[in-house]
C-alpha cells in the first residue's frame, strides 16, 4: 500500500470544491488559496489508519445477509447480519466480502474545532478538505483490498457503507467488534453510532468470481452503471 500521507496529500482539489457545493464551478482566487492552506493543515495533522479483513458471506433466500469469520480464523462466528435490501442488491452473486475501516485520526478534528472558534469560513473548507481526504484514503485502501482479492482470484464490487440506502448505522457496532476498530486504529462509537474521529469510514466490499472489478469510485463514475443490476442506490 502506498504511504497514507502521500495519498492524502494528492487529494483532488476538485473533490474539495465539490463538497463545498461548487459542482465543477471555479472558486475565486482567495478561496482557492484557502483551500490550499486548509488541505495542507489537515494533511499535517492527519494520522491515517486502516484495517480490513476478509470474511465469509451467506446470502439467505429470505434476503438476510450474514457476514462470518473465515474457517481459518482464530475466533469463529457471525460478524454481522442484516436484511438491508440495498446491500443485498450490491452483494448479489457475491461469495465473500471484506470489511474495512479507515480514519484520518484525531488531528484533523482538532484543526476543524479550532477553525470553528476562529473562522467559520475556514472551518467549512477544512471540513470539505477532510471529507475529500478521507475518500482518497478510502480509495487507496480499497485498491489494496482489490489487489489482495485478485491474488486470491476474486473481483470486487464497489464499497458499501452503513448509511447508504437502507443499510442501518447500527452495523457500526459490528464493524467495531469485527475489526477491533478502537484498538487497531482508534475509532470509537458514540451512543448515537457516530464515529470519532469524525473523518472515518467503514465499508463492506463484496467479492465475486467474475472477471472484472467494478469501478472503484462507485457507480456514479462507472460507464456501465446504466442498467447494471448491482447498482448502488
Amino acid at each position, binding site marked *: 500500500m502506498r504511504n497514507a500521507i502521500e495519498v492524502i496529500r494528492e487529494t483532488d482539489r476538485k473533490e474539495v470544491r465539490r463538497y463545498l457545493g461548487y459542482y465543477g464551478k471555479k472558486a475565486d482566487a482567495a478561496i482557492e488559496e484557502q483551500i490550499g492552506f486548509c488541505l495542507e493543515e489537515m494533511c499535517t495533522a492527519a494520522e491515517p489508519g486502516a484495517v480490513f479483513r476478509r470474511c465469509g458471506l451467506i446470502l439467505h433466500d429470505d434476503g438476510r445477509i450474514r457476514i462470518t469469520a473465515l474457517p481459518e480464523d482464530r475466533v469463529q462466528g457471525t*460478524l454481522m447480519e442484516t436484511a438491508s435490501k440495498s446491500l443485498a442488491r450490491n452483494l448479489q452473486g457475491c461469495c465473500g466480502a471484506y470489511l474495512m475501516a479507515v480514519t484520518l485520526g484525531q488531528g484533523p478534528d482538532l484543526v476543524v474545532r*479550532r477553525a*470553528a472558534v476562529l473562522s467559520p469560513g475556514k472551518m*467549512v473548507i477544512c471540513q470539505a478538505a477532510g471529507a475529500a481526504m478521507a475518500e482518497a484514503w478510502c480509495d487507496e485502501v480499497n485498491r489494496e483490498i482489490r489487489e489482495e482479492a485478485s491474488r486470491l482470484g476474486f473481483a470486487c464490487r464497489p464499497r458499501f457503507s452503513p448509511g447508504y440506502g437502507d443499510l442501518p448505522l447500527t452495523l457500526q457496532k459490528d464493524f467495531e467488534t469485527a475489526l477491533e476498530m478502537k484498538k487497531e486504529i482508534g475509532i*470509537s462509537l458514540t451512543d448515537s453510532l457516530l464515529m*470519532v474521529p469524525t473523518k472515518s469510514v467503514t465499508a463492506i466490499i463484496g467479492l465475486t468470481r467474475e472477471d472484472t472489478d467494478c469501478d472503484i469510485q462507485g457507480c456514479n463514475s462507472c460507464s456501465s452503471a446504466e442498467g447494471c443490476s448491482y447498482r448502488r442506490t
Partner: protein
Amino acid sequence: MNLLDKLGKEWLFCDGGMGTILQAKGLAGGELPETWNLKRPQDILDLHCAYLEAGADIFNTNTFGANALKYPHDLEEIVRSAVRLAKEARVRTGREDAFIALDIGPTGKLLEPMGDLPFERAVELFGEVVRYGASEGADLILIETMSDGYEAKAAVLAAKENCSLPVLVTTIFDSRGKLLTGGTVDSTVAMLEGLKADALGVNCGLGPEQMLPIVKRLTETASVPVIVNPNAGLPRSENGRTVYDVGPEEFSDWMVKLAALGIQVAGGCCGTTPEHIRRTIEKVSKLPFKRPVPKKRTIVTSFSRAVEIGLKPVIIGERINPTGKKKFKEALRRKDIEYILSEGLRQEDAGAHILDVNVGLPEIDEPEMMESVVTKLQSVTDLPLQIDTSDPAAMERGMRLYNGKPMVNSVNGKRESIEAVMPLVAKYGGVLVGLALDEEGIPGTAEGRIRVAEKIYAAAEEYGIPREDIVIDGLAMTISSDTGSAATTLETLRRIRDDFGGHTILGVSNISFGLPRREIINSHFLTMAMTQGLSCAIINPGNEAMMQSYRAFLALQDMDENCMGYIEAYAGTSAPAPSGQSAPSAAPAGKTAGEGAMGLSESIERGMTGSAEAATRGALKDRDPMDIINEDLIPALDRVGQGFEKGTVFLPQLLMSAEAAKAAFEVIKESMAGTAREVKGRIILATVRGDIHDIGKNIVKVMLENYGYDIIDLGKDVAPETIVETAIREDIRLVGLSALMTTTVVSMEETIKLLREKKPDTLVVVGGAVMTQEYADAIGADCYAKDAMASVRYADSVFGA
C-alpha cells in the same frame, strides 16, 4: 506481604496473554471472555495455575472488559468470581506469595468532550469494579491497555477513591511512541506520577522489539517502577488470520534487552503463554536489578504535550482573565465560551507555551465555569493549562476534569491556603505556584520572601508533593509605589535558583502599574528577570515588545538553536515607525499581505478580514459609525447573501464575507464604546440531543449575529429540557434547532413538543442535513430553513426587522 514491600526493590514478573489463550480454548466471536468466570471456571483456573507455575508474581483476574456497560446485570458476580478463581489458583499451586491484580481495561467508550462518556461516569464505572474486586480480596489494581490518558486518569481516581490497594497502570503506545489520543511517554508519565500511580509502564500493541525505544524513554522519565508487558511480536495476518509469532526463546531474549534498560516489572500480553513468561523469568531474574531513580523534572502536560519548566523560560499567556477586561467579564456573564476559547487560541498562535485560566467573577458559578472552560479549551488546544483561582472548589473541579498534569495557581504561605490547596495537588497532581507571602503579608525583603518559600517547600513535602512540583512566585510589585521593589523581586528569583535549585514565576506586567508606556518597563524587566533565573513569565504573548525581549533573550543566552526562533519571527520584517502608538497587534505576518487598500464594501464582499478592519478604521475618521453600518456594511453583506441565494456565491465565500463584516463591526463597536448596536432580537440556537454535529448551527450563528441578532448558543447534544428552560427564563421568541442525522430528528420533535407545551408563544425554525420541508412539517416546526440565509430571512420576518 504487601506488594509495595517488593515493588521497585526486586524483580517482579507479571503473567502473559489471557484473551488469546481463551480464544484458543474456544471463546467464540462476540462472546465476552469474562462470562467464562461463571460458565467455564475450570479453564480460567487452569490458566491462572499455568502462569503461577511458570513463576509469575503478579497475575490478572479475568476482568479486563468487566464494567457495567458490558455487564449491566451481573457485574458483581463476574468480578467476585474472577477474584475467587485467582485465590483458588494461588492455593492450588502453593503460590501464596503471588499477588492478585484486579485487571481493569478500557470501557470501550470515548470520553467527553471528543466522545460521549462523561468523565465522572467513567470514574463511577471503574469504581464499581474496584469495590467488588478489592472487597473480594485482590492485592492490587492493574489498569492496563489504556490508549487514552484521560480514561487512565479516571480509572486511577476510581481506584484511589474506592480502595487503598497499590495502583499500577500500563498504557498502549504505538510505534511512534504515542497513545491513540496523542499522549507521549513524557506526558503520560508526568500525569500518572502526579496521580500517584505506584508503578507505570507499557503493554500490548507492540512486540518487545518495537517497544525498545518506548521503554528506553520510560526508564529515562519515570521516577516510579516501570512495567513492560509486550505482545508476542506484532500481529501478522497469515491467510487472513492474526498470528503472533515471537516464540518464548526469542521473546525472553528481547525481554533481557528491555530489562537491561532499567525496568522493574516484566511480563507479557497478547500471544504470550506461560512458556514465554517462564523463559523470561529464568533469564531476567539473573540480571542485576536497578531501583528506579527520581528524575526531579518539573513537567506540566496537556493530553498530548509535555512542557518542561527549568530548561528555558516558558511563556504563560495571561489573557484568559477578567481582571480589568470589560469584554471578558461580559463574556463570562453570558457564558460566551467561544470568546474565551478565541482568546486562548490567539495566545497560542502568538507563542504561548501554557495558558493561564482565570474565570473568577463574583456573580457567576466559578466551579461550573472552570469546568466548562477547561474542558472546552482542551478540545481546541493542546497547550497545557494553568488553573488560576482562589476558590478551592473551582480549583478542584478544574484539576479533576483536566486531561493531563496542570499548573495550579496558587498557594501561599498561609496555613489556611496550604490546607486548602495542597491536598488537591497531592491527589490530582500538578505543578503548584507558591506565592511568597503569608499571614504577615508580602515580605518587603528578598530574605523574607525566601523564608516563605522555604515554608511552602516544607509544607509540600509533608503533603507528599515533590519539591520540583513547586514554582515560587517572587511577586512583581509596581515600582511606582516602591522604587526598590524590582530589586527585591529579582533578588528573590536569584536566590530560589541559586540556593534551592528551584523554579520561579512572575506576573511580569505588575511591575509597571501606574506608569506611562508600561511596556517599556515591562519588557526590560522581563529580560532582567530571566537573567536572574525566571522560569515562567506570565505575560500577554500578543504584546510584541514582550515577545521581542523574550526572543532576544533566548538568542543571546544560546537557548535558540542557530537563532532559528528569532529569525523565523523577524526575518523580512521591519521595525515599526517610532511613534506614540503601541506596537501593532501580533497578527501573523503575511496574513493581510496582498489585500492592499480596498474599500469596506469590496473587502466584505471578497471576505478580506484585514482590509475590512483597516477600511473601517479609515472610514471612522470622517464618517458616522451608523452610516458606515447602514451604507456600506449591511448592503455589502446583503449582496453576498443574495448571491448565495441565487447560487452565484458559495458557502465559503458567504462565511468569509460574514467574518470580514464581523471584524468591521468589532472595530465600529470599539469606537462607539458604550453605545451598543441595536439588537434586533434574541434567538436560541442548539443542536438537539444525541447529535454532536454543530457545524451547521455555527454557520447560522455567525450569519444571525452579523444581521444584528443576539444569540444564546446552547451548543450541541442539548436536552429538550435545557432548551425549554432557557426559552422560558430568557423569554425567547425564536428557537433554531439543528439535526444532522435522521436518528436525532426524533429529539428535535421532542424538543418542539415540550416547547409547545411549556412555552407556546415561541417559534421554532429547524435545519440540518437531513431536514426537509416535509420533515419540518411532520414534526411541527414553524419554519424549515434550507440554509443560513434562509434562517436570517425568517428571523427578520419574526422580529419585523
